[in-house]
């Protein structure tokens, strides 16, 4: 008499296997794609922030009286009086 496993017919489960591997390979692939999207968004944010930081720096430089003439930068007491 044949052992029991040899008498059993092999089930046709190809569809389940394909479905399983679609999930097992598809999920990590989607996850990695989500990284690329997050990275792209962060790079855009960084670009915007760096532009803002540069604008801020330029504005601060303009506000600082570094190029003022000696007469302008002199104290009021040092300036010659008009009278």
């Amino acid at each position, binding site marked *: 008499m044949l052992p029991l*496993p*040899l008498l*059993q017919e*092999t*089930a*046709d*489960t*190809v569809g*389940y*296997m394909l*479905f*399983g*591997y679609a*999930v*097992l390979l598809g*999920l*990590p692939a989607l*996850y990695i794609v989500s*990284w690329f999207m*997050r*990275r792209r968004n*962060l*790079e855009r*944010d*960084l670009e915007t*922030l*760096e532009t*803002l*930081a540069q604008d*801020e720096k330029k504005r601060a430089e303009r506000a600082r009286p570094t190029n003022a003439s000696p007469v302008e930068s002199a104290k009021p007491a040092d300036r010659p009086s008009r009278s």
Partner: protein
Amino acid sequence: MPKASRSVQLLNIVTAVLMLIALGLVFLYAPRERVMGEVQRIFYFHVPSAWLSFTAFVVTAVAGAVYLRTARPFWDQVASSSVEIGLLFTIMATVSGSIWARPAWNTWWTWDPRLTTYTIMALIYVAYLMLRQGIEDPERRARFAAVYGIVGVISVPITWFSIRWWRTIHPVVIGSGSATAEGGFDMTSKMLTTFLFANLAFTFLYATLLVNRVRLARFSERVEQLKARLLAA
């Protein structure tokens, strides 16, 4: 984002090659299981997914403990990245297991002790990510998450041993020869080779994902710091 270092690039390539070899072994080398047929091949990727989900959550707890000791943000990034990857593996293992269960158990889902404890473990780590989202201050967020990660890891051994502690229909794969294991099964040498190789490839996959995810987290931190500096100015 800074370019990946040579060692990271090498790790990415090695992992891709190992995964391709693992797929080749699964579909071309491992024999077809006599009773279940082709669906049994899911097992070669299902078990490593589950195994690495446990590993990822243990890594989170260890990184959390190191963070509490050193207060270095890098360890917080490792912990949170590992949770994210652990959840990915958890979903992969759950969904692939459910697909295998349909022809094997004649149901997509059953509230078996292993499936139930695994679901609870997944929810614990979903809550970890929600907790992080809810705290603004980075230091406070890292500290709370570290403590949560250390407490949450208790769910890992409970899930692991659930198939030995309670009556279950889930097969015992690792340590199936022990007296407490029910539903153990044998593998042919080709099946065992494929199974062990798939575990190795998945371990590399986890390491690769973690390294790259931490890089992304560091880049994100840099952007956040610049944003905070501009707001403060």
